[in-house]
C-alpha cells in the first residue's frame, strides 16, 4: 500500500443530495477519488463521468476461446486421436459437439470475466481495501477526495462539500 495519502471524506445522508453534489463539485473542477454507497444509486456512474466498462469485450474474447477450444478438443479426440463411431455417426460429426461447445463457451466466458474483473479492480488475497468510513456499508454515502490530485486546499474542499449538503466532512490518512 502506498504510504501517506491524505483524503477529505464527505458524508451524505441522501442519494439525491449526493448526486447533485457529485455533479456540482466536478463542475467546480474537483477530482473525486471514489464514492461509496450502501446501495446502487441510479445515474451515479454518469455523474462521476465513468466510461462504460470494457468487460463485455473480455467476455466475448473468452467465450470465443471456449468455443474454439471445445470444438478443437472434440474434433481432435473423436476424429483423430481416438476415432470412434458413436450411434452410427461420422467420426467428427458436428451436432453432438454443440452442447459441449456451448457449455465450454459459457464456462470460459464466466471464469474469464470474473478473473478479468478481479485483476482490473486490483482485488487479490491479503489486499485490504481502504475503509473511508465504515458507515458506507450501512446508511451513509461517502465521497472520498484525494488531496494529492487536487489543487484546492483542505479547507476549500471541506467548505465546498459542506455547501453541497454533506452532513459532515472528515479527514483520513492511509
Amino acid at each position, binding site marked *: 500500500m502506498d504510504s501517506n495519502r491524505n483524503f477529505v471524506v464527505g458524508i451524505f445522508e441522501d442519494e439525491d443530495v449526493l448526486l447533485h453534489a457529485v455533479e456540482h463539485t466536478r463542475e467546480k473542477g474537483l477530482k473525486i477519488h471514489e464514492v461509496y454507497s450502501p446501495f446502487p444509486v441510479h445515474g451515479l456512474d454518469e455523474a462521476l463521468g465513468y466510461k462504460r466498462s470494457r468487460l463485455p469485450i473480455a467476455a*466475448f474474447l473468452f467465450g470465443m476461446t471456449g468455443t474454439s477450444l471445445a470444438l478443437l478438443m472434440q474434433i481432435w479426440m473423436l476424429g483423430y486421436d481416438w476415432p470412434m463411431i458413436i450411434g452410427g455417426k461420422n467420426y467428427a460429426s458436428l*451436432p*453432438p459437439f454443440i452442447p459441449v461447445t456451448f457449455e465450454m463457451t459459457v464456462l470460459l466466458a464466466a471464469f474469464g470475466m470474473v478473473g478479468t474483473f478481479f485483476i482490473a479492480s486490483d482485488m487479490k488475497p491479503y489486499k485490504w481495501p481502504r475503509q473511508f468510513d465504515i458507515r458506507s456499508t450501512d446508511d451513509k454515502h461517502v465521497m472520498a477526495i484525494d488531496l494529492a490530485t487536487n489543487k484546492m486546499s483542505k479547507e476549500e474542499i471541506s467548505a465546498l462539500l459542506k455547501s453541497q449538503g454533506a452532513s459532515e466532512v472528515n479527514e483520513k490518512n492511509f
Partner: protein
Amino acid sequence: MIADEKYIFKPATKQKLFILIGVGLLLFAVGVFMAKNGGHHEGAEKHASQEIAKSLVASTEPAEHVASTEHHGSPVWLKRIYTSLWQNNIFFGGIGIIGLFFIAIQFAAQAGWSAPIKRIPLAIGHWIPFAGILMVGLWFLVKGDLFHWTDHSLYDVKSDHYDKILMGKSAYFFWPLHAGSFPFFFVLRMVLFFGLWYLFFVWIKKEMLAEDINGGNSHWLASRKLSAYFLVIFAVSSSVSAWDWVMSIDPHWFSTMFGWYVFASWWVTGLATITLIVANLKGAGYMKVVTQNHIHDLGKFVFAFSIFWTYIWFCQFMLIYYANLPEETVYFIQRMRTAPYSWIFYANIFLNFALPFLLLMTRDAKRQISMLKVVCPIVIVGHWFDFYNMITPGAMKLEGGVGFLEIGLAMVFAGAFLYVVLNALSKLQLVAKNHPFMQESLNHHI
C-alpha cells in the same frame, strides 16, 4: 401527464401499401403463369438429387405413398398457391396473435417499462379476426391438397390405402364422428381457438381504452386478470394449433418440441414486428416518450428470443439426428437433402440465428434504431422462410419452390396486414393516457 397523440395514416402511406399489394398481385400472376406454362424446368443435376431423395423417402414410407403424391389432387401450380396461402396466413396470423400475447405478458408480469409502447401490439392484434376467417375459409379450400389425413380411404379397412397409423390418430381429428368423415374436432378447435383469442382481444382492448378515459387502477387490474386467463388458454391453444395447422401436414411424423417451435418462431417474429413499427414511428417523429431505454429493451427481446428459437430448433434437430429413427429423420431428410429446400434449411439458421446473434450482441447495437431497422426485417423474412420450411416440403413434396408466386403472395399478405394494423393504430391513442405505470416507464433507465 401524457398529451393526446395519434398516428396519422397518411394517404401517401396508404398508397405505398396499395403499391406493395399491387406489385405482389402482379408477381403472383406472373408466378402462376410461369408455374402453369413453364412446367418442369429441371436440370439433370436437380433430377438426380430428387431421385436420391425419393429413394430415401421411399425407404421409410410405404411405396404407394410416394408414388401417389406425384399425381394426386390438384395440379402443381394450384397446389403451390394453396400451400403459399396457408403458409402466409399461419405466419401473419401468428404475428397478430403475438400482439395480444405480448400485451398479456406485460400485464401478467406487471411490467412498467412497456407502458408507452403497448398500443403497437394492440394494433397488431387487430389482425386476429382476419386471420381467423381466412384460416377457416382456407382450410376448406386446401384440405384435400395439404392435409393427407383428410383422405377418407385411409380409414377404410377394405381399401388399399388403409393406414393403421392414421387410424390410431383419427380420434384427434374426427371425434365424435367416425374416422374418415367430417373432421369435427379439428374444425371445432380451429374455430374455438380463434374465437377465444378474439374474445380476449376485445375484452383486454376494452379495458385498455376505458383506462384512457376513466383513469384509476381498476382497468389495469381487470386487464391483468384477463391476461392471466388468456395466458393459460394460450399456453394450450398455441401448442395444439401448431400440431393442427402445421404438424398435421406431415401426419405420420411427430415431434414433442413442435408446439414450442412454432410458438418460438411466432414470438420472435412478433417481437421483431413490434420493434420495427416502434422504430419507424420514432423515426417519423411520433412517440416522444419512448426513449433509447425502451428501444434497448425491445432490442434485447429480439436478441434473446432469436437465441431461444435457435435453442428450440436445436433441441428438435439434435434429438431426431441422434436417435436416427427412420420415421422421425424423414422430416429432416426432406428438408436438408432435397434440391428445392436444402438452401432454405441452412438459410433459416443463418438468418434467424447467426445474423441477429452477431449484429445485436453489443449494447450499442440494441440501442440504435438504425441497427434495429436492419435486424428486424432480417428476422421477419427469416421466419417467413422458417414457416416455409415447416409447411411446403410436407405439402408439395419435391415440387415446391420459391418463386414469383410465393414472394408475390407474401407481399400481398404483408400489405394487407400492415394496412389493417396501421389503420387500427390511427384510431387509438398512440400512447396510453392513464396507465398506472407510466411514470415508472418515463423514468425507465438501463
